[in-house]
């Protein structure tokens, strides 16, 4: 990742941090899913935060894919989005637009 201060490139750092946080929350949900009951407050908070992403990814995923795999798919889509965002940021700097 670019070694820019967090405030000078907020338009890049903000969305990047948001995507990273969602990736980590999805990883936690994937790990805790089989271990912790869905009724616990932790899992309910995790589900509330990550469900919009899961619904969006679920809409572009065939129905035969199980929920746990949809979480993995969501992580992959978010990572791709971060890579694209990073490339867009680099291209912007390359063309002197920053």
């Amino acid at each position: 990742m670019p070694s820019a201060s967090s405030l000078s490139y907020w338009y890049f750092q903000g969305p990047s941090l948001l995507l990273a946080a969602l990736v980590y929350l999805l990883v936690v949900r994937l790990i805790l899913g089989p271990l912790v009951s869905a009724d616990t407050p932790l899992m309910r908070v995790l589900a509330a935060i990550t469900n919009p992403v899961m619904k969006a990814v679920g809409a572009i995923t065939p129905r035969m894919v199980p929920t746990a795999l949809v979480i993995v798919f969501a992580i992959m889509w978010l990572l791709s989005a971060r890579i694209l965002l990073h490339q867009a940021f680099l291209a912007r700097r390359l063309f002197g637009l920053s």
Partner: protein
Amino acid sequence: MAELDQERRASMLFGRRAALVCLAAIAAFNGSLHALVFESVTYSPVFDSVSYYVSTFAQGSYFDAVVRGMLESPQLYQNVTSMFIAAMTLLIAGIPAAIYERIRGLKSSTPLSLGIWLAAAVLLSLPTIVQLINGEEF
């Protein structure tokens, strides 16, 4: 009658599994996962550019520090790139099948939607397949 039903169900299950295996094989080939096992050549025309994107993205991250510092194996980026392309082939190829299922209002996947998924994966892998046929490696 029950036996016939059971036979039909078993053949459908076999067909579904065969389609999934084909899908995984096509995605793995597009991502050049075979290069990790028996042949160190890649036929995918996008491999180098994706490898560049992945390595520039990871630069300065903890992952990069572990790969270069502790593992001393920058080669790992090639493997990560392979897995990334294979996974994205599966994900992108699934979009037309998912749209078909939503339009038809299906509650579960059908052999046709699996076929759409498979056909989309083949279409996405077409440049790699052409490179293999022409014998041009990267």
